[in-house]
């Protein structure tokens, strides 16, 4: 369990964040310490130089100098400062140290080189000539060290409090994040067990976890709809196949009876065969739709002209239409742009639409295929003067095996428009149904090829 907790992203982030905080605190403290020390040292130097100037200003009279140095020496507490006045030969005239002398100018000396000095503390010393005498003034650096120490202590405490707070906040965030992740994980486990209604609970914060949660929920909605669709389709397929299977059974039974009577069984067997073909063509269409929907065909797309495809269809079905006392006409704009697609599938798409018109329209109807460019799309319409489709039913006709109630009795698998939709979707084309008063207009908008 502890290793599991450490593998969780929020906990790892918290630990990482804490470490980064601590490290940056140490670096900041070190930089501040160095800067403050430098600043304090500069101030000490300034104060030593000031004192030196004050004493020097007194004058060059040796008694005055002596007095001034003595006064300063006397005012010194705890050996904080050192003063020394020497004559040219180095003999001490006044001051609180007895050392032989100091180097000219600025120097830092350890307390071990001095008498009457605070042990373990360095002194900052300025030594220079005043007339024929030599004056030395110095101050110890204990104050600098004390301030620096104080600062380090303060930073240390602040750091400790900060790290503690980060740790507490981190654990809080980690536990909460962990809990939300666990909730997502348990939701997905429910889904995995087959409960497609399970959804991830979203907070009101709308943060990244919520965004992922929302995406997952949307995907689950779609999945649930798909599964429901599949379930519906399997039920529909079962129903669809029951009729021909039933008829086939009857035909075979009839054939057996006829055979026993010694009568001709061929017509009945032919009927059974025809029913078998119906079943097969339903399966074929379903498999084809599934294959088209898988999108693999897109790899074979080429830029192609729709005109010869439409002409071929008009030619193939024109004769069928006139035999049915219907008319089929193709009206296309000259110089249509190319589209990116699959010629076989597009042929089937338009053939299906024309066949729908031929089969559902009474004699005397006319069917018109129109093709024109509209901006970035090639729009092909197949319109007829038949009974049309009621508006409420127009979306449903794309569903697999859906048939209008009144066309239940006519032939056809109820898969023609599903196939049309699948092929159109594969080509990124939009299919819409409308009324042509009277009749039906099917409109296919195919994006023109990029090169066109």
């Amino acid at each position: 369990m502890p290793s599991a907790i450490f593998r969780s992203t929020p906990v790892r982030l918290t630990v990482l964040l804490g470490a980064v905080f601590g490290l940056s605190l140490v670096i900041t403290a070190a930089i501040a310490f160095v800067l403050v020390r430098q600043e304090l040292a500069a101030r000490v130097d300034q104060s030593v130089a000031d004192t030196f100037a004050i004493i020097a200003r007194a004058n060059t009279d040796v008694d005055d100098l002596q007095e001034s140095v003595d006064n300063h020496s006397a005012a010194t507490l705890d050996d904080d400062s050192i003063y020394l006045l020497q004559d040219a030969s180095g003999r001490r005239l006044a001051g609180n140290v007895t050392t032989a002398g100091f180097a000219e100018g600025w120097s830092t000396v350890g307390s071990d080189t001095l008498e009457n000095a605070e042990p373990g503390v360095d002194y900052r010393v300025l030594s220079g000539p005043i007339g024929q005498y030599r004056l030395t003034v110095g101050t110890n650096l204990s104050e600098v060290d004390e301030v620096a120490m104080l600062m380090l202590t303060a930073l240390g405490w602040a750091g400790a409090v900060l790290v503690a707070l980060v740790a507490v906040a981190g654990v809080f965030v980690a536990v909460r994040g962990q809990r939300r992740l666990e909730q997502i994980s348990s939701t997905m486990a429910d889904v995995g067990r087959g409960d497609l209604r399970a959804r991830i609970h979203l907070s009101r914060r709308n943060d990244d976890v919520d965004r992922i949660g929302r995406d997952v929920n949307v995907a689950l909605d779609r999945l649930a709809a798909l599964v429901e669709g599949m379930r519906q389709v399997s039920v529909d397929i079962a129903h669809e196949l029951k009729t021909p299977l039933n008829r086939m059974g009857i035909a075979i039974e009839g054939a057996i009876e006829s055979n026993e009577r010694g009568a001709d069984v061929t017509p009945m067997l032919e009927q059974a065969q025809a029913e078998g073909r119906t079943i097969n063509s339903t399966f074929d269409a379903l498999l084809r739709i599934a294959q088209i929907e898988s999108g693999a065909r897109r790899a074979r797309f080429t830029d192609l002209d729709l005109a010869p495809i439409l002409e071929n269809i008009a030619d193939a079905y024109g004769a069928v239409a006139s035999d049915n006392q219907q008319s089929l006409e193709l009206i296309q704009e000259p110089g249509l742009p190319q589209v990116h697609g699959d010629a076989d599938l597009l042929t089937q798409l338009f053939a299906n639409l024309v066949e729908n018109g031929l089969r559902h329209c009474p004699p005397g109807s006319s069917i018109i295929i129109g093709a024109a460019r509209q901006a970035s799309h090639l729009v092909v319409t197949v319109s007829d003067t038949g009974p049309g489709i009621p508006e409420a039913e127009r979306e449903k006709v794309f569903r697999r095996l859906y048939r209008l109630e009144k066309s239940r009795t006519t032939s056809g698998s109820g898969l023609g428009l599903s196939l049309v939709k699948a092929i159109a979707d594969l080509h990124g084309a939009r299919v819409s149904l409308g009324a042509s008063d009277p009749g039906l207009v099917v409109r296919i908008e195919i994006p023109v090829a990029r090169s066109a």
Partner: protein
Amino acid sequence: MRILVVEDDQRTFEYIRKGLLEAGHVCDVIEDGTDALAHATREPYDVMVVDRMLPGLDGLSLVKALRSAAVKAPILFLTSVGGVDDRVEGLEAGGDDYLVKPFAFSELMARVNALARRPPPQASAEKTKLSVLDLELDLVRRTCRRAGKDIELMPREFSLLEYLMRNEGRVITRTMLLERVWEFHFDPQTSVVETHISRLRAKIDKPFELPLLHTVRNTGYSLHA
């Protein structure tokens, strides 16, 4: 004809073998793709019928291997998946025709016959005139005559007649016509073929004494004297 059938489903190959033997052909059946490759590179066949799904070597790889081994015999693919992709893949692999299961034997036979008598590619280009009895088709001038009388044909009727004449005496199925003449690789719900055949018949047969275009019941059509 000597025909090799590569198919692992026993019922299917028994059905095919029985039909081919009855039609007077010699038929060998091999159930495994790898065996078929070894056998077909040694023995000369007039036509091969190859299932797409085979144990050992699948049908597609088998045909590719045969073609790269310079085996030129025409090949008919069989498949249970009625997809367009499979057809294109099969043809690209070196197959010559394609038949989707379940199929009627007459369809298989018609296709095997059409494949077997397919002339070599260069020969077909040389032929500019086709004739059956007193019916003549000029492929260059796109004209049709019967018994010395000019017959006016629509472009598609011309292709339909050309295909039937090239396969004189052979049964051509409705599906074969749809594929070759209209490039329809699906099963139309309306009588496209029947309509065009009857129109063609009205032009080339009706005005004359002897009919040339015959309907073969439950199968298709055949053009012969």
